[in-house]
């Protein structure tokens, strides 16, 4: 399950993710992280059964945690199944099936948003 962790600048100076890994023993896979002077955001992947534990521990350390049920979303009425998103996706989320219809492997998505600007129909949106 994927979690989106956001923290303010003050909290960003503490090793929150490392501490959660040490305290809970859960192996956290950081798939994407942006940390700058004012705030930080990290997309992490954790095993489903330990998701709540990690979430609670992170919240107790002062981070905001959203559980992400979905990856990138496609608006079926806008999508024309061209496939412009396929080659630019770093995680190979998109593919065409045997009827040339666009398929999504949502679980691979790391919500980087690269496909959003590539879509000629503006049919792709991030959840949240």
């Amino acid at each position, binding site marked *: 399950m994927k979690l989106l962790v956001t923290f303010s600048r003050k909290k960003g100076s503490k090793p929150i993710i490392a501490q959660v890994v040490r305290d809970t023993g859960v192996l956290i896979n950081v798939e994407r992280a942006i940390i700058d002077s004012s705030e930080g955001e990290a997309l992490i992947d954790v095993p489903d059964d330990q998701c709540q534990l990690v979430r609670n521990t992170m919240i107790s350390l002062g981070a905001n945690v959203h559980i992400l049920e979905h990856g990138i979303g496609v608006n079926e009425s806008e999508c*024309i*199944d*061209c*496939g*412009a*998103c*396929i*080659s*630019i996706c770093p995680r*190979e989320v998109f*593919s*065409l099936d045997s*009827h*040339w*219809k666009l398929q999504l492997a949502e679980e691979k998505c790391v919500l980087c948003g*690269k496909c959003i*600007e*590539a879509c*000629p*129909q*503006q049919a792709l949106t991030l959840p949240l």
Partner: protein
Amino acid sequence: MGVLLPNCGNVSYSGAGVLNPLSNDPKLRLIGSGVSIFLCGAEGMVVGEGTQHSPAGGFGTLMVTGDLKEMSQDYLRAATMTGYGVTLYVGLGIPLPVLDIDVVRATAVRDQDIFVDLLDYGVPSRSRPALRKVSYAELRSGVIEMHGEEIRTSSLSSFKKAREVAGELKRWVESGAMQLALPTRPIDAKKPVKPMYESTKGPRVRDIMDRQVVSIGEDEEIRTAAKKLLKGETNHLPVINSDNVLVGIVTTFDISKAVANPGKAHLVKDIMKKKVITATPDEAVDIAVQKNNISALPVVDGGHHVIAILTAMDLGKLFGRRWLK
């Protein structure tokens, strides 16, 4: 062009390939003025050749007409392409009457028979170098191979929609809703396009690179490399193997380090940096220098042979010449 990733990171293409009417009638015997067509769900007509019609170069275009009010959103959509701008997706189908054996042959075309040039859009010139020929079958497969690497492809037009257009057009013809017609005036099938003259050009690596490049063999001694550096008054020596292929680079820093800490390293190949960032002559200077923050780039040809070197010093040539206006 859609989103293009740096360093041949992806390939984008457009067009329906095997379902493209112009690929099925390359001599334009059946497509011409007055021919009834499927145009975005309405019945339209071919007027004549379109702008930049260049069938000699494999890119014929058509001017068509139809009633917008009868068209369907299923086949007519607004779109925005990164690096191109605002455009329209237009679903267009042309019924081709099978009149004789030549039409049968022409319409038997397959994706693997339709070849196009694979162009490097990293080169800022109207005549971009063709990296190689590529067929629609390869493009459609999702991956093409280049320099031993797999590069993913993206279509910018929908093949699913193209099939829907073809299916709908077939129903029209079968039900008698569309009458087939032959052109009343043919379209020139051999005309090349003559685009406007390109009056300004950005500097490319070939314009400022230093062709007097000194290189060294990988099995030479470090002393020899030091001498060459002194004699050539340079700080970078590309290292080549016995086949003259670039395998590394040594700098004055590497040699100073080897001299300051004498160890088991005696040969150039022991101290050279094996990961060399290179440039090609056709690359734009600004793209080439952005590849790294080091001070020299060996310039290589297709076979990875060193033909020149581009150093920070060469960038000075950009000043006071025709580039600076």
